[in-house]
């Protein structure tokens, strides 16, 4: 039986991608500001590279200038592509801000898509300072700029591994009434989130359930923690 919760539309802006293995992956697209910051970091790095190049290659005379022009070309047009394809969808700027580029179906970005999205950056820059790109990014549900739309790519947050919180110590209690799957999940997530809630708020939330759980408002919190423990089978 499929639980009702898993298939309902998502409240936030995460995208659901179904994999060949039959599980749903949730991708969180990154908005305009983190992407602009990542671009600014990359711009600064490229500027520093070019400055270093021109200082060192200027000493080599005309051969150095030719080499410098080649490297300028490389840095200008290929910096993004090379990093995105060879470094798991992350340029240094994106890495810094915890972003990565993936295809629409969640697979890592390849040569063709990366080249497409970065060449079309030229149009996103028009008529000045990323105007079209910013407009498209603000208007698109997945924050895509024009290059992303054409290449079928997404910039998503790279999820950081989270610590599993410890449950509050409580005596396991059998639930006094039959609980649906969603209700079970709600009780468990209350128990898991208890550390991030203030004591007053915890008491207030738990008191709502005092009557259906056949307990007093003061005791409701401990009862819920106990039920969660029993449901999870934690000892």
């Amino acid at each position: 039986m499929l639980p009702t919760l898993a298939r309902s539309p998502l409240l936030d802006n995460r995208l659901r991608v179904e994999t060949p293995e039959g599980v749903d992956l949730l991708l969180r697209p990154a908005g305009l500001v983190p992407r602009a910051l990542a671009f600014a970091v990359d711009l600064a790095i490229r500027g520093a590279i070019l400055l270093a190049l021109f200082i060192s290659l200027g000493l080599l005379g005309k051969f150095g200038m030719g080499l410098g022009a080649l490297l300028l070309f490389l840095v200008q047009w290929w910096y993004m592509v090379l990093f995105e394809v060879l470094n798991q969808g992350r340029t240094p700027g994106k890495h810094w801000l915890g972003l990565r580029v993936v295809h629409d179906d969640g697979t890592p970005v390849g040569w063709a898509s990366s080249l497409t999205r970065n060449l079309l950056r030229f149009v996103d820059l028009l008529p000045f300072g990323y105007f079209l790109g910013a407009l498209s990014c603000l208007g698109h549900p997945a924050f895509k700029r024009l290059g992303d739309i054409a290449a079928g790519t997404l910039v998503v947050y790279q999820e950081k591994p989270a610590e599993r919180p410890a449950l509050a110590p409580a005596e396991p209690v059998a639930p006094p009434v039959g609980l649906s799957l969603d209700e079970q999940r709600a009780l468990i997530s209350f128990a898991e989130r208890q550390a991030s809630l203030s004591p007053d708020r915890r008491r207030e939330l738990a008191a709502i359930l005092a009557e259906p759980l056949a307990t007093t408002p003061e005791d409701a919190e401990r009862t819920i923690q106990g039920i969660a423990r029993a449901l999870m089978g934690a000892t």
Partner: protein
Amino acid sequence: MKQAEFERQHQQLWLALTTQLDLLERGRPLDEPSLDAFPSAYRQLCQHLALAESRGYSGQLIDQLHQLALRGHQQLYRHHSTLLGRLLGFITGGFARSVREQWRYLLAASLLFYGSLLGMAALVYAFPDLVYSILPPDQVAQMEQMYDPDASRLGRFAERGAGDDWLMFGYYVMNNIGIAFQTFASGLLFGLGTLFFLLFNGLTIGAVAGHLSGIGYHLPFWSFVIGHGAFELTAITLAGAAGLRLGVALLAPGRMTRGDALRQSARQAIRLVAGAIVLLLIAAFVEAYWSSMTLSSPTIKFIVGALLWLFVAAYFSFAGRSRHAAD
């Protein structure tokens, strides 16, 4: 099964998978047995995730498994083929095939580019003053100086020795590939940008050609451009064809949505652009090292130039005809 029991049973597998993913994400190779086991471990994890969701296990556990599945998915579906092999396959056949598939767009781009080029050249040849309505006078003077029949070396910065060829190579790569990229990318503006760049370049080159032929510099000019022109002009029309492909997808998406049509056409167009990059690299090399030489008679340059044009035409007509040769 209770969640705690489920976690106890599978913790081992998840930990092992996490270590493997850590290695893979940092670009380290896995040892043979764990590499073989990776796909099945990943599929098991996906099964655990599905089970955890349908059994109503805690959100934290589901998040943890989901994150592992996401990371595994990124690694399992990574593109692993070597760049060199794909590049060779592309050059020996795939590129010519893509170009033949898109012949309508190439024809349109060629008509626009060569049409404006030849038309402008003929006009300037007939009415010499017309060149000043296209180019500013100091640029015309610079062009005249570049192709002066008395110069020892031809092309931009005529006074140069062999060491400067390097400088020119870099300059040509920068300049020409930049133009090709712009021609392609601006196709996203409903094809208008591509139209502009094709016509603008066609008119400028045509004006220069007509003007130099008119004032009697035709031998140095044509012997200079014929060699690398085979690659350079073809590459510009290819980038134009790719740009027009994008524009047409937006203007007439057919039965698809505009977004889908754009994505599909971009996949085909980017192959033309990749090929154009290769052609432009060859062109820059020829232009810097061969075209700029002044030989005693220009005949040899015309012969080599004609051969290069024939070579390009033959490549696009015949390469990649037999399917298995390319793969």
